[in-house]
């Protein structure tokens, strides 16, 4: 595994619990949308902590990589990022990892992306990749978050939808009594999955599901129950 010292160039708050950390790397290593990196922290006595984070920036953006990190209460690494890390700090970042939960080679589509909370990070990379590459692969993102504030990157996603390039968004809020127009209410269910699949212009090529394990378990099961062959469904599980 190759490691580099990335320099934090920018920190952008994305929601009350998620911030984006932008890293400039000595050498930009090409990656595929959907891949992640490992981040490694080292204490003065040599103790190390290492965690995985999906790359949220597009492969076309070579000046930096962006990681969207959710602060978990008592989280060793995520809380360190939120409480200690500042611009100009150096953090060890691995080369890009993962050859499965990635944008498919070629132009195959349509793709259904299903995100829970901070699990949207790899799909932000995919949305930006679609925009910047001009690929016409049809994509629909089904995005579940707690409240409207937790709908990460919502303005950027809305802009990409408005360009009418074949990127569609279906958002739902699980803890918002009164979601804004066009946004659904409640947890992802069979009807939402059916609607998402129905909105795609042709038969599904691949489904990607990303988020906490309970979220992924539920959503992936609903997709399989909707008749999608399990072999088409890729999952990325962020934790307990």
């Amino acid at each position, binding site marked *: *595994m190759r490691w580099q*010292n990335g320099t934090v160039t920018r920190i952008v708050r994305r929601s009350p619990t998620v911030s984006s950390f932008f890293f400039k790397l000595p050498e930009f290593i090409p990656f595929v949308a959907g891949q992640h990196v490992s981040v*490694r*922290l*080292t*204490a*003065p006595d040599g*103790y*190390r*902590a*290492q*965690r*995985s984070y999906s790359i949220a920036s597009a492969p076309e953006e070579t000046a930096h990589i962006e990681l969207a990190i959710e602060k978990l209460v008592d989280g*060793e690494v995520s809380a*360190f990022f939120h409480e*200690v*890390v500042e611009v100009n*700090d*150096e*953090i*060890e970042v691995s080369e890009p*990892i*993962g*050859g*499965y*939960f990635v944008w498919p080679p070629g132009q195959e589509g349509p793709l259904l992306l299903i995100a829970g909370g901070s699990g949207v990070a790899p799909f932000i990379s995919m949305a930006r990749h679609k925009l910047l590459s001009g690929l016409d692969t049809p994509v629909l993102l089904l995005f579940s978050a707690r409240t409207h504030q937790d709908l990460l990157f919502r303005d950027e996603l809305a802009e990409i939808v408005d360009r009418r390039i074949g990127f569609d968004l279906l958002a739902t809020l699980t803890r918002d009594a009164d979601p804004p127009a066009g946004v659904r209410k409640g947890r992802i269910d069979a009807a939402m999955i059916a609607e998402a699949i129905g909105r795609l212009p042709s038969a599904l090529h691949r489904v990607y*599901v990303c988020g906490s*394990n309970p979220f992924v*378990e539920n959503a*992936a*099961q609903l*997709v*399989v129950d909707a008749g999608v062959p*399990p*072999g088409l*469904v*890729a*999952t990325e*599980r962020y*934790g*307990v």
Partner: protein
Amino acid sequence: MATRGFTGRRSGSDETRDRLPPGQFLEHGFPVLSAGPTPRVRTEDWMFTLKDGVRPVKSWTWAEFNALPQSKMTRDIHCVTTWSKFDTAWEGVMIDDILGDAFIEPPTGFTLAHSFDGYTTNVPTPDLVGGRAMVALRYEGKPITADHGGPARLLVPHLYFWKSAKWINGLQFTAKDELGFWELRGYHRYGDPWKEQRYTND
């Protein structure tokens, strides 16, 4: 290089630290990692097959497999995503006992484990025999839940946990070392946590 301001959340006692391979931390929950949806394998449909190359040597139904000698293994497990969990208690059939029931000695030094969902992982045969590995049927005294690989999963606790294939349905001896699902996708061919063999070139 030390990271500015990082002291880390030490995992307790010296004993804990000695049991943690490099770069691992102690987890009390049991996180789930899998590449796809959780397959729901019914024990009525369950079948385990031992193969030498393409040739099936022996198959067992769920009832037949449960009638094989049952053993216990309580071990620390280490996931490549850096969590470790201590003293996980499993019960199942040692690979030695599977081979014994099929009346064979391991024909080759390489094994590919297969799962119901098409997942594969390669493990050198010597790492599976001599009391080092089992096909586990129970965890903490109860049937293994589907998300943790039930009805049956491989348990090779001295290697990173992706080697302990969930939803296992067979072991295949191969003439040479054939890479499995994650091993073809950037992960180490052997996966020794004490040598931190996480990725292909580690």
